[in-house]
């Protein structure tokens, strides 16, 4: 900035300068008029933004102008009561750090000679050749190459500045303000209608000024339709008379547009939009989320041919002749214009679905008008009336509705016969089919009364589903058609269709094996990352079906209907003890979504119920004695067969007695051989020793352990054992402080605990069969934790908490007492918390010396001090525990209650809630869909998918499902989908068969990839490069197509009559003219001038000029 900074410094030292500064800082008698106030305010803003006395910046590096490092500051200024927005836009120069900026300015002040060389920022920008034709930038930046500028525009866009005089006033105000402030940043005033993008501006430098102005016309005046004409304008404007005339440098860019993709018309494979709506319903339609764009996501290709820097003498373009042949342009670059909204299906489905998760309607509210006409009395639950209707053949067709409205039918049947309750759905189905097909209601009723028939229906559950809904809704008005519903049900519950066919599973596995390896890790990790549900689980299927149903089968009503079906099916499965397929067994996985946990819980309940009932019904038939009898039951052949399988299984035993297990597996072979024998002999000899079944735990495990213990027993001498038992009654009574259990027979033994013997009784220590802790879903857990937390941190609270949680401890103690008559707390602790039993060092005895009975008896030790604290929970619990085997204890886990709780939870969910709860699963599905469809080798996409997963894992794990974050997430999913669709489309367009040389394949791939990433991609090698030749071919093909169709039109086009040109006429031509010349007088300083010209065929003609003038030597 030659002289500018020093000048200012000097002036500020002078009294006048001081006065100036004071004026706007203090006040105000000079700011009397609106105009003066406007100027003062402008200066204030310039000061605020610190635009004063800038050290000049070098021009921005190449390509920076189209980066996203642009920043802006905005404020408002009033002229009288007319409001303007004033905006400072600038490129954030992170390539120059501010400190070096300061350093640079200081030596300049010392050494004026140096700073003379440095052009002011504006001028350097104007003349920099690096930043012509930025790919994407503000128009002022595009025209003048500026890296910082201020724009003043009316705040109200509908009130533009139209009159010349107002423009002049504004400009002169700006000029004064700039002068006063000593600001070298150009300021532009937006005039005329906004869409015209007319800016007139000024920049005040020391000793010179630059005027910026724009000419904007609708059509191109023919004298200026070429470079020659434009040069004339430029030179005339400079109007310099120096000789020799300074030469003008020219940069030219022609843009050609390609919209006809002859080789690859869209769509290649029409996405299945309509098929689910039509009669023939493709199986696939419910099974997966749709993917892909409905419209071509790539709408046009713009080829920009650039001649970067030429002397005006080197090229000729006038009315008759042009040197500017695109095939000879040194630089080619390409930009792809994407379709604004290519209507991507996955994103659309998810977005629409998400929109409904806040809907508050209940299922009934949604379905009321499609339910068959029912008197309100039915809805109020008048069972009597319902009953009478049931028996009235005329009204039989309304029966289903009874079922529907609040499950009255079910309630009814439960009232009349609880045992038959679970058969009802099936019955109603029978009623329906009969009614529908034969109309003979009598027959239906007779079927109704025949429970056997209902039993025999093969796939009860599925038929029930379809039947009940069909029954419930007015014919033809159900949101989901019968056919579709059947299909959905068979898909969601594959076991309903055919329990022995598992074709669906095969499909799934095939898909995963075909998947690209690069996503394997992502896919494998996905279930752990997201809080959703395992892949291909019931919930995944349901979520996808609900979404498809929502989009294609009646919206929310369809969702409501399907959800109701689902809930009915869940109840049916509970009542009929069918495990829910597609849901992992075991305790709820707290890493999965709540809904999935609930289903797991329900499955747990069903499992327990089955076991419970097996024990009371099934096993009595098989075993020789009833399990209730205290004498125990026999190990049957079946149990022995189980043994082999189970002996190596990772059972609960592991944790309690590793020693035992190793011994077990070592001996397992021998054991197998001997097992039966042992068993037989033992049952003969030692009926009392054999542990019998426990009701609440896994039977197989116990059998294993039974045999194990038996085996151990038998490996000792049987006779010895017998004497042991005899001695129990006699000896222990005197020694044991524990009275109530002495005489009872041992019950509920699982296995021996190593070689430990009871302390006071000469009897091995047995690990009892115990109740398993009840499974919990996260909401239960939370509730539980909250209750515990509410008790506070006091010691009383802690005690209460301990007591509250001691149910399990007490249960274990009772089991232990039952299994070990004559035991004491010490014995229990030795098993349960071995570190609280401190063995006296002197008496450490080799436990393996089991033939020396006396030694074993001598083991001495004591409870740890914490166990000896008087009145502690352990002692308390021990004293209160009665010897009760686990199977006769109160259940820790009430499966009936828990199942009902789950079912109630499901039934009370509104369809909106269902959607919200399934969002995470749906997102999971969507990501899988994306990964399955992402076959482009674009690194960026892989990265984005990874980011998507990270984001999804965060969103899905948030305890309270935040819809806003889901919106973001789904927007992102949609975005990735769009990108993939674009990549596909581009890949199709730049197909490999267009490439001349196979070795360029990689380069083309990179080129396609770049086109997706960057707004503008330069074509390596220009027209002669591999990509260039493909683009050339594309244009040629499109031209041929065009001319074949419009042969008659070509006659008007005289230039192209003989041959079809390779390229269409350029749709835009841009010229940048630059020179340095003294202005306004020949003796003025030589200053830079620039004119940007944009000629768009049939669109606009625009000249934007920046002309400097010497303000000293005029």
């Amino acid at each position: 900035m030659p002289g500018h900074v020093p000048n200012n410094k000097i002036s500020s030292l002078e009294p006048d300068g001081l006065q100036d500064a004071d004026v706007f800082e203090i006040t105000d008698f000079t700011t009397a008029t609106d105009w003066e106030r406007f100027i003062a305010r402008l200066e204030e803003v310039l000061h605020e933004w610190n635009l004063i006395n800038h050290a000049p910046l070098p021009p921005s590096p190449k390509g920076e102008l189209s980066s996203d490092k642009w920043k802006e500051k905005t404020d408002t200024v009033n002229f009288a009561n007319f409001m303007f927005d004033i905006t400072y836009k600038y490129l954030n120069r992170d390539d120059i750090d501010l400190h070096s900026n300061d350093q640079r300015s200081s030596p300049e002040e010392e050494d004026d000679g140096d700073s003379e060389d440095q052009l002011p920022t504006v001028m350097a920008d104007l003349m920099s050749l690096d930043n012509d034709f930025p790919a994407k930038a503000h128009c002022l930046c595009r025209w003048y190459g500026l890296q910082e500028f201020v724009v003043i525009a009316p705040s109200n866009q509908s009130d533009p500045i139209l009159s010349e005089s107002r423009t002049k006033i504004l400009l002169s105000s700006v000029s004064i303000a700039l002068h006063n402030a000593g600001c070298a940043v150009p300021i532009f005033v937006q005039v005329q209608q906004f869409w015209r993008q007319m800016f007139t501006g000024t920049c005040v430098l020391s000793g010179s000024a630059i005027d910026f102005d724009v000419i904007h016309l609708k059509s191109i005046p023919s004298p200026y339709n070429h470079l020659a004409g434009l040069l004339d304008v430029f030179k005339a404007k400079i109007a310099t008379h120096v000789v020799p005339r300074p030469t003008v440098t020219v940069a030219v860019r022609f843009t050609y547009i390609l919209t006809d993709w002859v080789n690859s018309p869209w769509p290649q494979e029409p996405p299945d939009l309509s098929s689910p709506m039509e009669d023939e319903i493709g199986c696939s339609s419910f099974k997966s989320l749709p993917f892909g764009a409905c419209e071509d996501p790539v709408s046009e290709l713009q080829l920009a041919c650039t001649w970067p820097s030429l002397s005006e003498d080197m090229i000729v373009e006038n009315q008759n002749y042009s040197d500017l042949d695109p095939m000879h342009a040194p630089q080619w670059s390409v930009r792809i214009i994407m379709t604004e909204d290519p209507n991507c299906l996955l994103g659309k489905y998810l977005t629409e679905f998400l929109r409904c998760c806040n809907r508050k309607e209940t299922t009934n509210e949604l379905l009321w008008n499609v339910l068959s006409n029912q008197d309100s009395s039915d809805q109020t639950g008048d069972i009597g009336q319902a009953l009478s209707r049931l028996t009235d053949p005329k009204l039989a067709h309304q029966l289903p509705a009874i079922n529907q409205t609040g499950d009255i039918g079910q309630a009814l049947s439960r009232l009349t016969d609880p045992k038959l309750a679970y058969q009802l759905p099936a019955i109603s189905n029978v009623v329906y089919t009969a009614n529908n097909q034969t109309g003979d209601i009598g027959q239906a009723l007779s079927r109704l009364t025949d429970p056997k028939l209902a039993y025999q229906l093969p796939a009860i559950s599925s038929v029930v589903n379809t039947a009940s809904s069909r029954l419930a809704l007015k014919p033809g008005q159900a949101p989901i058609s019968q056919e579709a519903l059947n299909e959905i049900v068979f898909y969601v519950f594959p076991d309903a269709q055919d329990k022995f066919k598992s074709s669906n599973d095969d499909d799934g596995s095939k898909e995963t094996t075909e998947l690209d390896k690069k996503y394997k890790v992502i896919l494998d990790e996905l279930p752990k990352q997201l809080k959703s549900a395992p892949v291909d689980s019931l919930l995944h299927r349901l979520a996808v079906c609900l979404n498809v149903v929502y989009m294609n089968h009646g919206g929310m009503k369809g969702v409501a209907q399907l959800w109701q079906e689902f809930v009915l099916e869940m109840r049916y499965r509970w009542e009929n003890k069918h495990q829910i397929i597609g849901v992992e067994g075991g305790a709820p996985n707290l890493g999965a979504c709540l809904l999935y946990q609930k289903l797991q819980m329900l499955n747990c309940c069903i499992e327990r119920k089955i076991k419970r009932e097996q024990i009371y019904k099934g096993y009595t038939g098989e075993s020789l004695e009833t399990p209730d009898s205290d004498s125990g039951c026999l190990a049957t052949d079946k149990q022995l067969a189980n043994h082999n399988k189970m002996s190596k299984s990772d059972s609960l035993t592991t944790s309690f007695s590793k020693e035992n297990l190793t011994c077990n597996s070592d001996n397992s072979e021998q054991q197998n051989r001997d097992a039966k024998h042992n068993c037989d002999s033992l049952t003969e000899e030692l009926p009392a020793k054999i542990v019998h079944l426990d009701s609440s735990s896994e039977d197989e495990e116990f059998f294993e352990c039974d045999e194990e213990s038996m085996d151990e027993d038998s490996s000792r001498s049987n006779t010895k054992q017998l004497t042991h038992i005899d001695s129990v009654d006699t000896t222990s009574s005197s020694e044991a402080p524990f009275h109530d259990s002495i005489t009872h027979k041992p019950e509920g033994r699982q296995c021996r605990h190593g070689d430990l013997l009871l302390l006071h009784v000469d009897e091995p220590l047995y690990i009892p069969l115990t109740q398993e802790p009840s499974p919990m879903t996260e909401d239960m857990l939370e509730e539980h934790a909250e209750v515990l937390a509410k008790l506070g941190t006091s010691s009383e609270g802690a005690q209460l908490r301990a007591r509250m949680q001691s149910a399990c401890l007490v249960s274990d103690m009772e089991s232990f007492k039952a299994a070990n008559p004559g035991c004491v707390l010490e014995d229990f602790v030795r098993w349960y918390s071995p570190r609280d039993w401190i063995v006296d060092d002197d008496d450490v005895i080799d436990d393996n010396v089991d033939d020396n009975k006396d030694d074993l008896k001598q083991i001495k030790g004591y409870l740890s001090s914490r166990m000896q604290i008087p009145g502690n929970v352990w002692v308390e619990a021990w004293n209160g525990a009665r010897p009760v085997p686990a199977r006769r204890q109160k259940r820790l886990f009430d499966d009936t209650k828990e199942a009902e709780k789950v079912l109630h939870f499901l039934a009370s969910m509104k369809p909106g809630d269902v959607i919200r709860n399934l969002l995470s699963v749906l997102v999971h599905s969507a990501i899988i869909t994306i990964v399955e469809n992402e076959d482009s080798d674009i690194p960026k996409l892989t990265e984005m998918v990874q980011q998507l997963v990270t984001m999804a894992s965060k969103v899905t794990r948030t305890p309270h499902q935040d819809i806003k974050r889901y919106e973001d997430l789904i927007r992102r999913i949609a975005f990735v989908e769009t990108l993939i669709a674009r990549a596909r489309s581009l890949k199709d367009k730049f197909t490999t068969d267009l490439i001349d040389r196979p070795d360029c394949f990689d380069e083309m791939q990179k080129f396609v990839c770049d086109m997706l990433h960057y707004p503008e991609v330069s074509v390596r090698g220009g027209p002669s490069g591999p990509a260039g030749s493909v683009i050339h071919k594309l244009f040629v093909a499109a031209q041929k197509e065009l001319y074949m169709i419009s042969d008659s039109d070509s006659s008007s086009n005289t230039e192209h009559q003989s041959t079809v040109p390779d390229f269409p006429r350029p749709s835009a031509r841009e010229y940048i003219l630059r020179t340095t010349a003294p202005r306004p007088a020949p003796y003025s300083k030589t200053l830079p001038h620039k004119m940007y010209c944009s000629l768009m065929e049939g669109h606009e003609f625009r000249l934007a000029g920046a002309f400097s003038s010497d303000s000293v030597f005029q």
Partner: protein
Amino acid sequence: MASANDSKWQKDAADQNFDYMFKLLIIGNSSVGKTSFLFRYADDSFTSAFVSTVGIDFKVKTVFRQDKRVKLQIWDTAGQERYRTITTAYYRGAMGFILMYDVTNEESFNAVMDWCTQIKTYSWDNAQVVLVGNKCDLEDERVVSTERGKQLADQLGLEFFETSAKENINVKAVFERLVDIICDKMSESLDSDPTLINSQTKGTRLTENANTQQGGCQC
């Protein structure tokens, strides 16, 4: 200090009397000194014998960290095998773990690996873990050397401390460190969030499209 909070605890949460709440879990074999450790930290008291914890118990302490009030809800767990299923259920909500062994007990040290696996299985992957060898005051009875503890911690990628609840060695340091790691992790993920948003506008063409279309060739 504890009893005063009883009724207020719930209210505090609602009152937003803190900026963050971290849920921490102390795990490790039975009788390695988890409860003592917690009492030392929360109440600055030590008793040689606390009743063996049944299920889970907890204490609350509020600390200041980088000008933020951080409320620590520290859950103390029962170490007995039998309680594993019950306690692991609480892992999912925990942001940090103090995995404790007893330097005088080899078995408790050997179990560290198992506990670590449990954490991996049952907690979210961003939970932070500190390995603590407790009872370091009992030098005479020590069977696990500091080096071995350190080595294992390195191997598992955990921070490591040797502590004594009895002599109040390093107790505070463990909690402070854990809180720090959690804070760091949190700000890290906060930092990474904007980049996620940024990258949405940066590397993508969707937003750019709008610009190119209005400011593209037309001018």
